[in-house]
């Protein structure tokens, strides 16, 4: 016999369900005013430094149908690659947003500032990216992924370089559709399946 480890196990996840908006985005659920201040309405305030970008997309299931009930959270740096709260971080960037697929079209929109290169552990930089966490009915454990940008230098990014099947790296790269506008669809399953992360 050996001593028993006294570490605790993580609480298991469960699906957020179809009514996640009641708790996280009351206005989207039809319950405006439930909280005085809803969190995550925008990751930036007026005056944020850098390029303001709008990213649109859908979360698409294995049949090609867009989810109408997904909720996404995003977390990112400011335009200089500093996380909120760090020294010299842009005070107009909270870095956190919550947005939902539209109940009719499934389209989501994230308006934010384009992040800067982000330090990697042990030196070097990660290419500019926005971290995403996707929850919905039918998703038992929230899915982590990232948005990169096609007009940035992604060649040295440590995470993108780890993707063995090179064509799959493309699923993490937002495509420019106009000045300051990008398209980023998230495919949960099947052809063109988005790379999801465990880190």
């Amino acid at each position: 016999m050996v001593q028993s480890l006294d570490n605790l196990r993580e609480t298991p996840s469960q699906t957020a369900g179809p009514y996640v908006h009641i708790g996280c985005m009351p206005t989207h659920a039809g319950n405006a005013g439930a909280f005085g201040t809803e969190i995550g309405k925008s990751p930036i305030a007026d005056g944020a430094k850098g390029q303001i970008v709008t990213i649109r997309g859908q979360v698409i299931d294995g049949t090609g149908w867009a989810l109408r009930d997904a909720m996404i959270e995003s977390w990112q740096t400011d335009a200089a690659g500093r996380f909120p709260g760090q020294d010299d971080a842009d005070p107009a960037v909270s870095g956190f947003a919550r947005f939902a697929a539209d109940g009719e079209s499934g389209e989501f929109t994230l308006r934010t500032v384009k992040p800067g290169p982000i330090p990697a552990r042990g030196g070097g930089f990660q290419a500019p990216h926005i971290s995403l966490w996707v929850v919905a009915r039918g998703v038992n454990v929230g899915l982590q992924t990232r948005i990169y940008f096609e007009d940035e230098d992604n060649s040295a990014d440590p995470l993108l370089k780890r993707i063995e099947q090179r064509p799959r790296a493309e699923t993490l790269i937002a495509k420019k559709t106009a000045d300051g506008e990008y398209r980023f669809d998230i495919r949960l399953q099947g052809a063109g399946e988005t790379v999801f992360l465990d880190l």
Partner: protein
Amino acid sequence: MTTDLGPLVPRDRAAHPVPYDVDYKTSVARSPHQPLLSMESTPSEETGPRFGHNILGPLDNNLILNWTKGAAPAVGERILVHGRVLDEFGRPVPQTLVEIWQANAGGRYRHVKDTYFAPIDPNFGGCGRTITDYNGYYEFLTIRPGAYPWPNRANDWRPMHIHFSIFGHSFGQRLISQMYFEGDPLIARCPIVNTIKDRSQIDRLVAPLDMAKSRPLDFLAYKMDIVLRGRRQTMFENKPEGM
């Protein structure tokens, strides 16, 4: 906030539900077929949003009264739901946002897409939030939610449950789960519960009746402790504040 916090402990995926489960039908088309890409966490996952008490209203953790701003109480069995948020090393997770949402006593959600014919309670909204104290402790006053039917298999009913959303201190700790109630015979029959294949992990979501915290002639209490991912630290790493 500091950048050198040490990597997160890798997730033990066996502690969690399987992503694909034919008995929970919606998961079939919404679960990835490809494996997850794993690597050590980076500052993007090791940092995360922090929320201060300035976002909270005085009744945000009181679902009995918050929908009517205190004017009239919700109908149902009055309960206190409380517990601690810890990490895998048993450390409290202080000053972190905990959000809950639930159906009313009849199993009806206040959501534009819920059409179940059990009535809306005009005095119940169904959402609450709070921030853990310096010991990682939180509490909510609410009413016990009812079971409700859902279109999965022909006669599926969700057990009584409260949805939980917990932030922790880093984006990689983000967790959404559900709390169930001790003794509910629907728990064992629920395909969402049974997406968790480790029986002992299911038990982690079943809150025991806690008579020590109930208040006589007022409310019963249930205790729900939550464990988030820990952060690996070695003697070679700088200790950031608060650790």
